[in-house]
C-alpha cells in the first residue's frame, strides 16, 4: 500500500544492509563464545530473543501469512468454508483474468502510469535538486527547501482533494484562468485524456521536494576542489553543473533509476481510488485499484487474489531483471 517513493526507500535500505554485512567483520563476541555449546549460547541470548519474539511473530503472521494465503487464488474461496476447506480450481481464475480484455487494459494503464512517472517525475526531481543546489545563500536555500517538502506532510486525501478542486469545472482555479483568457471551461476530471496529467502534476506537487532530499544529500558530498579546478579552466555555471555536479551524483542517480524501473508497475491503489471517476476508468484503472474493487466491492476474493498475485510476481520479476540488466551494463547492483 506504500507509494513508489516508499518502495524506493525500502529497497535502498536493503542495499545498505547487504553492504554493511560484507564490510563488518564478525564481532569479537563470536570468538569469545564459539567454544561454548549451542544451547548455552542460546541461553545467553535469551533476553535478545525475548525482545525479538513479538516482531518475529508479526512478520510470520502478517507478512508470511498472506503469502501462504495466496493459495486461495487457486481455490474457490468461500468465507463459510475457510481457506483450507474451499474447493481447488487450479488455474481457473488466472485463465479467466488473462482471457478478458480487462487484463490488457489494466496492464496498459499500469505500465503507462509507471512510465510517465519514470520519464517525468524522476528527471524533474533531479532537476529540482540541481536548481536548489545552485542557490548560494544558505538561508534562502533552507526556506525554499522547507516549503518544497511541506506537501509531503499532507495526506493523499488532502492532496487529491486540492487537485480535484483546482481542476474542478465549477469552482476550479484552472478553469477560472481559462475563462479569463477567453477559453471554454473543461471538465478535466471527467475527461480520460486529462487523467494522467492530473495524476502526474499532483505527484510532482506533493513529491518533488521530498524526492530531492536524497540528491541534495549526495550533492553536499561533492568534492569542492573539483569546482575550483573547473573555475581555473574558466567553466561557466551551467558547464560546471553538467561536467562536475552531474557526474558526481551519477551513482545515486543510477541507483534511484534502477529502483524506479524495478518498481515501475508497483503502484499503490490509494491515489487512483481517489482520483478516478467512472468516466475515466478505461485509462485510470490499474491492477491494485481493480483488486480493491473486485475483492472488497464484489467480494470475489479468489479472483482478486489471483490478480494481485500476478501483479506481485510480475513486479518481483521486473525488479530482478532490472538489477541483472544494470549489473551487466553499468556494474551497479542493488544487492
Amino acid at each position, binding site marked *: 500500500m506504500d507509494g513508489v517513493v516508499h518502495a524506493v*526507500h525500502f529497497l535502498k535500505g536493503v542495499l545498505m544492509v547487504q553492504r554493511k554485512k560484507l564490510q563488518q567483520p564478525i564481532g569479537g563476541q563470536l570468538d569469545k563464545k564459539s567454544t561454548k555449546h549451542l544451547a548455552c549460547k542460546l541461553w545467553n*541470548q535469551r533476553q535478545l530473543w525475548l525482545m525479538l519474539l513479538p516482531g518475529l511473530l508479526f*512478520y510470520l503472521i*502478517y507478512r508470511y501469512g*498472506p503469502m501462504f494465503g495466496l493459495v486461495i487464488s487457486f481455490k474457490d474461496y468461500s468465507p463459510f468454508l475457510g481457506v483450507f476447506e474451499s474447493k481447488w480450481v487450479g488455474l481457473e481464475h488466472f485463465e479467466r483474468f488473462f482471457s478478458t480484455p480487462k487484463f490488457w487494459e489494466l496492464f496498459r494503464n499500469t505500465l503507462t502510469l509507471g512510465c510517465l512517472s519514470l520519464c517525468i517525475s524522476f528527471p524533474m526531481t533531479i532537476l529540482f535538486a540541481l536548481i536548489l543546489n545552485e542557490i548560494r545563500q544558505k538561508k534562502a536555500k533552507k526556506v525554499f527547501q522547507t516549503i518544497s517538502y*511541506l506537501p509531503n506532510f499532507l495526506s493523499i486525501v488532502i492532496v487529491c482533494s486540492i487537485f480535484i478542486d483546482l481542476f474542478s469545472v465549477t469552482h476550479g482555479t484552472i478553469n477560472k484562468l481559462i475563462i479569463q483568457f477567453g477559453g471554454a471551461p473543461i471538465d478535466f476530471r471527467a475527461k480520460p485524456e486529462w487523467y494522467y496529467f492530473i495524476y502526474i502534476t499532483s505527484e510532482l506537487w506533493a513529491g518533488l521536494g521530498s524526492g530531492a532530499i536524497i540528491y541534495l544529500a549526495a550533492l553536499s558530498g561533492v568534492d569542492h576542489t573539483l569546482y575550483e579546478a573547473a573555475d581555473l579552466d574558466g567553466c561557466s555555471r551551467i558547464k560546471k553543473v553538467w561536467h562536475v555536479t552531474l557526474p558526481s551524483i551519477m551513482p545515486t542517480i543510477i541507483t534511484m533509476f534502477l529502483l524506479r524501473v524495478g518498481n515501475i508497475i508497483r503502484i499503490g*491503489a490509494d491515489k487512483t481510488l481517489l482520483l478516478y471517476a467512472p468516466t475515466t476508468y478505461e485509462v485510470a484503472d490499474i491492477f491494485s485499484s481493480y483488486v480493491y474493487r473486485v475483492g472488497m466491492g464484489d467480494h470475489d476474493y479468489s479472483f*482478486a487474489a489471483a490478480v*494481485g498475485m500476478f*501483479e506481485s510476481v510480475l513486479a518481483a520479476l521486473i525488479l530482478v531483471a532490472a538489477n541483472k540488466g544494470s549489473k551487466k551494463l553499468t556494474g551497479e547492483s542493488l544487492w
Partner: protein
Amino acid sequence: MKHKKKLTLFDGIVCLILIVFCATILYPLLHLLAVSFSIGFHITANDISIFPRGFTLESYFYFLENQSVIRAYGNSIVYTVVGVICNVLFTVLTAYPLSKSYLLGRSFIMKLILFTLFFSGGMIPTFLVVKETGLLDSMWSLIIPNLIWTVNLIIMINFFRSLPLSLYDAAELDGASDFTVFRTIAVPLSKASIASITLFYFMGHWNSYLIPILYLHDKAKFPLQVVLRSMLMEDQVEGLGQVVDISQLTPTGVKNAVIVLSMIPVLIVYPFVQKYFVTGVMVGSVKG
C-alpha cells in the same frame, strides 16, 4: 569565501524558478484556507484567490456541531497515539537484537524480513489474515497488521550497529544484562533516530485512509481521513443540503474547513520535526 562572488543572471534565473515553484506549492494551500473562511456565495461564484471573501466562520461552526466529524477527529487522535507508541516500541525492540552480529540465526532472520520487501501476499490475502485473527472492525486492525515498517526497522538496525562496540563491552564487563544495556545505553543514544521513525509512523497513521476503509466497517470508528474521503467522493457533506442556505455554507467550504483542522497537528509539529524528516530520509537511503 576568499572573494565575494557577485550575483549573476544565472543566480537570478535560478531564484526566479524557485520562487515560481514555491508559489505553486503555496497557492493551493492558501486558496484552500481562504475558501474555508469564505461564505458560500463567493465559493459558488468562484471568485476567491488567496484571501477570504465575505469572511465567515460558518464552515468551522458546522464542523463543531457535527458529531460524526468530531468523533472522527477523536478517533484519529486515539489511533495515532496508540499506534505510534506500539510501532516505535516494537520496531526498536526488534531492531536491537538484529543489530547484534553474534545473534544466532541473525542472517536467516534478516533474509526473512528483507524478502518481504520484494514480495507480498497482497491486499486480499492480508485482509483475510486480518479477518482470521479477529481484528476486523477494531482499532487494532489499523495497528497490528502494520506493526513494523521494514524501512524504519532498517533505519534502527543500522543506527544500533553504528554505535561503537566499546560502549557495549564496558557495560558487559560490569555484568549488565542485554536488556539493561538496551535500556540504559542503546535507547538513550538513539533519540534522534527514534524521533525520525516516530515522525514517519505519526504521518503514516494520521494520514492513512486505505487501511481504515479496508478493515473498518462501523462508521462510528472511522478516522478523519475516511470522513474526508467521503466528503471528497460525494462532493457533499452528510446532513448538509436540505437544512442550510447554500449562499452561506457549501460542501466545498465545509470540506476545506475539515482539511484545515486536520492539518493542524501536522503543522504544529512540522517546524520541530522537519529536521528529523530530512535525516530520516537520508539515513534510510544513502548513508550506510
